[in-house]
């Protein structure tokens, strides 16, 4: 059933070389995270692509690995925090910005609903997936294997390696508006809780999140920050004002066990149209339906299923798939078992509720396994679904809407129309309703949404589709178009969203097209978005998301944009949107924003080293107050590195209170660090104390007035500067009565 050739890439021998780069990340996050893969996303980078390789890094669970030499070396280097782990090849410097970009892009993936018949869920539950069919395919949607080619609105194609979709239980989408948070704590508090939890599990004394400072000196993104980012981008629930979480398509699945397959499919379809799976009226109901027949390889006859599948294709068209799965549960000891990859995009509440499971029943190690053949089948299904149905469907919708709605709006008449809307009653517009009171009247004020077939909603949907298809130019121009409409209607959340996404898509649009972005204009858009989100709509989570997007995207632009990024991060802290852990993370981020602006070649001014160093120190202070001395120590080290250029060779701050503060901080970090280490003796701690080199003598008389003002780098001449210094510090001629002024 499984060909050995298929298994090869999935389960390489212990000496598999790609394991080596992972050593570094493990050095930083040794313990629990290996099995829980909680902070793993950086390992699941699109370029590494194939999800099944992830479990290989699992030291504790796979005995075969722990015997391998590389695994042993991991253990021994674990306790050494500090720069020992820096030299690993995978900590690529340049990738950092691209990584965050990719992360942001992938967070805006199309949503595909899943609606399966009870018999399908039953089949899948036998395999150990309690959540049914949706849970089974969910992790595989996040990374579409291979390159995906997307055509943009002007007809040029581009391939993407990191494309993915989000499988969502269709019922959840339909339920969503009724109980937004189900009385649970706010999403932001949940994010904070996830972070705190993550910290507690990783911040065993010796580990701590040591930031992969790359060799070039640009700070890259710490894994913890990535987790924060990912969580923040995952909290958005279905809401009227943006359509990213609205289903683009829905998978309707039945199994070969179904006695009346075609009728079941019809019933399921009917449910999505007007039954219990009917979407709210601000969601466009004409999403793609995709029909899947799950064939039970272990119990059912394939010829019967094939026959049924042919019937399905006749009735429902091309958007069908025959998925062949085994219904037996796979256990780790099976020959061709493959661990099910972790979901990359779990919402904070899911993370909080699901995480303990693997910890509780460690015997069955809580991890799910699939037969290799199943994995291949699911992957093939996902790829076919997305490449042949979902993406073409979206491309088509964008083209149609662009033609029918947007171009009219963009044209002269469209402009006139939008003008006339402002003056109520001038010329009846060709659209469904005529304006009143300066607004189009399409906006349902009491409920706060546009009906799905109003042009404002369709344009927004088109822009979002374009955005998800990574046609940022079209997206940006469409959002721009929408901004004034929403303002006229006082649809503030829509308004904020349009400004936010307009700025985001402008920033995502690659520089190539000679489009020099103006930071001021971008800042202005974020400013407006923020104001509308927070003040007009009191939507703190979305405000924070908006600000964080601003920070990350501006930062990735570099130069003066990075400076602006730092300011947005400060704004986020200032508005009280983040709590303690978030404050620490954002401080680190501000530091790295400033650090990403090095002075131009040849001169010593123009950098932002002092600012970067300052924020790093503040971050250290915050971590310390949170009781995370390991993190604080890392920040302190980073601060020292950043300050190295601007302080004298003795590393002493010229200003006394600053020095006192730093000295105290160092001492407390050291004490805290040693205490934490003392509590856990089991951990083999490295002999090298990472703080040793941070000891600085408390010299009170710091460097006296240097004679040369700038030339201390390369004193020109021995006769003047250098000798002056030596003569002052005690000449060879002590009785010299020659004095200097």
């Amino acid at each position, binding site marked *: 059933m499984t060909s050995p050739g298929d298994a090869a890439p999935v389960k390489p021998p212990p000496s598999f070389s790609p394991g080596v780069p992972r050593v570094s990340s493990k050095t930083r996050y040794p313990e629990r995270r290996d099995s829980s893969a909680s902070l793993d996303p950086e390992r699941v980078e699109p370029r590494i692509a194939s999800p099944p390789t992830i479990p290989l890094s699992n030291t504790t669970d796979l005995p075969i690995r722990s015997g391998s030499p590389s695994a042993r070396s991991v253990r021994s280097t674990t306790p050494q925090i500090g720069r020992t782990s820096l030299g690993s090849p995978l900590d690529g410097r340049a990738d950092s910005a691209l990584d965050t970009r990719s992360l942001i892009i992938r967070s805006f993936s199309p949503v595909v609903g899943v609606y399966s018949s009870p018999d399908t869920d039953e089949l899948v539950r036998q395999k150990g997936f309690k959540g049914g069919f949706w849970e089974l395919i969910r992790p595989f949607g996040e990374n579409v294997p291979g390159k995906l080619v997307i055509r943009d609105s002007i007809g040029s194609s581009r391939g993407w390696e990191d494309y993915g979709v989000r499988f969502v239980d269709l019922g959840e989408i339909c339920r969503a508006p009724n109980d937004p948070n189900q009385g649970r704590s706010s999403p932001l508090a949940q994010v904070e809780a996830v972070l705190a939890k993550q910290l507690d599990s990783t911040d065993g004394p010796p580990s701590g999140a040591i930031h992969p400072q790359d060799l070039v000196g640009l700070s890259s993104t710490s894994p913890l920050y990535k987790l924060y980012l990912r969580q923040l981008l995952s909290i958005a629930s279905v809401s009227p004002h943006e359509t990213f979480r609205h289903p683009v398509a829905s998978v309707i699945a039945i199994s070969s066990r179904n006695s009346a397959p075609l009728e079941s499919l019809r019933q399921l379809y009917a449910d999505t149209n007007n039954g219990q799976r009917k979407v709210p009226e601000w969601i466009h109901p004409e999403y793609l339906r995709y029909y899947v027949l799950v064939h039970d390889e272990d119990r059912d006859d394939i010829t019967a299923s094939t026959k049924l599948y042919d019937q399905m294709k006749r009735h429902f068209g091309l958007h069908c798939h025959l998925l062949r799965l085994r219904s037996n549960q796979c256990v780790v000891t099976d020959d061709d078992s493959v661990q099910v990859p972790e979901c990359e995009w779990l919402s904070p509440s899911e993370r909080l509720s699901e995480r303990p499971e693997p910890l509780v029943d460690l015997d069955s190690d809580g991890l799910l396994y699939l037969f290799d053949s199943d994995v291949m089948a699911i992957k093939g299904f996902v790829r076919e679904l997305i490449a042949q149905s979902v993406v073409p469907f979206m491309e088509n919708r964008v083209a149609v809407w662009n033609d029918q709605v947007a171009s009219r709006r963009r044209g002269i008449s469209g402009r006139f129309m939008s003008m006339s809307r402002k003056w109520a009653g001038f010329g009846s517009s060709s659209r469904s309703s005529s304006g009143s009171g300066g607004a189009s009247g399409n906006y349902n004020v009491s409920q706060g949404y546009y009906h799905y077939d109003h042009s404002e909603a369709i344009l927004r949907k088109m822009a979002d589709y374009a955005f998800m298809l990574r046609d940022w130019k079209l997206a940006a121009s469409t959002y721009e178009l929408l901004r004034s409409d929403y303002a006229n209607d006082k649809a503030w959340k829509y308004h904020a969203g349009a400004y936010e996404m307009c700025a985001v898509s402008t920033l995502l649009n690659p520089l190539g097209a000679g489009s020099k972005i103006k930071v001021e204009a971008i800042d202005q858009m974020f400013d407006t978005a923020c104001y509308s989100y927070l003040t007009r709509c009191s939507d703190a989570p979305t405000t924070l998301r908006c600000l964080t997007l601003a920070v990350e995207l501006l930062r990735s632009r570099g130069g003066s944009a990075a400076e602006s990024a730092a300011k947005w991060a400060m704004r986020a802290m200032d508005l009280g949107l983040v709590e303690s852990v978030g404050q620490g993370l954002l401080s680190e981020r501000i530091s790295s924003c400033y650090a990403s602006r090095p002075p131009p070649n040849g*001169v010593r001014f123009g950098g932002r080293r002092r600012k970067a160093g300052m924020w790093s120190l503040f971050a250290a202070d915050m971590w310390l107050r949170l009781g995370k001395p390991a993190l604080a120590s890392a920040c302190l080290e980073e601060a020292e590195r950043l300050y190295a250029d601007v302080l004298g060779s003795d590393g002493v701050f010229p200003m006394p209170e600053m020095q006192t503060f730093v000295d105290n901080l160092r001492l407390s970090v050291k004490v805290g660090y040693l205490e934490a280490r003392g509590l856990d003796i089991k951990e083999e701690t490295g002999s090298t104390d990472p703080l040793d080199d941070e000891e600085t003598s408390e010299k009170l008389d710091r460097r006296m007035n240097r004679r040369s*003002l700038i*030339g201390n780098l*390369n004193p020109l*001449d021995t006769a003047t500067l250098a000798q002056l210094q030596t003569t002052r510090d005690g000449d060879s001629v002590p009785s010299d009565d*020659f*004095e200097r002024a």
Partner: protein
Amino acid sequence: MSHPPRRSSMLSTSSSAQTVTPSEKQVPPQPQLQTPTQSNPGLRVPSNRKTIYDRHLNRSRNAESSRASFAFLFGEMVTYAQRRVTGIQDLERRLNEQGYPLGLRLLDLLFYRTMSSSSSSALSSSSTSASPPNRPLRILPLLHLIHGPLWRLLFNRPADALEHSVSPDTPNEYMITDNDPLVNSYISVPKEMNQLNCAAYVAGIIEGVCDGCGFEAKVTAHNQPTELWPSRTIFLLRFGESVMEREKVLERAGVK
């Protein structure tokens, strides 16, 4: 051999004039000069309650000091510097060091005076019409500052020439020529010391100005006698690597 009678305005800061020469240490300090920088609690305030902060910096700007007294003073400075020197180079180095702090001070004084003279004499006037002089950012403005205003402040006339090294190997070298340096007017150098040029003191001043402005430089004085100007002196300015690099960056940035 015409020596136009030049008056030195070098020490023209009147009562606080002694400050300009670094060798003042040996002169018994006058109490009213001493007060402001003393750290001891028993601050000695002069009897007339006038500290240096109460004196106007511009009052003496047009006052001139006697050339004779300057010649005498400078002679003493050379003598002082000559004690236990190891050679001519050492002597020149000491003279240079004496000039250096003067350069730094003159820089501030020069800008202060230009600033306050361009606006009305009273600083408190709220007239904003006069724009204060610019700090030199590039080498050329700096050299013009030395060649013109600084020389005028010191010697009441501009320097005689300003040249750039023609050699491609030394683009960082510039020369300022003084046909008849005041400091050398009354100094006759013995034959065995004919390499010596006491204008090393002035070179030190220039160095102080350059360094103060942020242009790391090494300045030396060299004898270049001509028929007409037997004590013609060339001040050779060699700017440091960092300065030259910055020049390139600033040029690209369009800074003048």
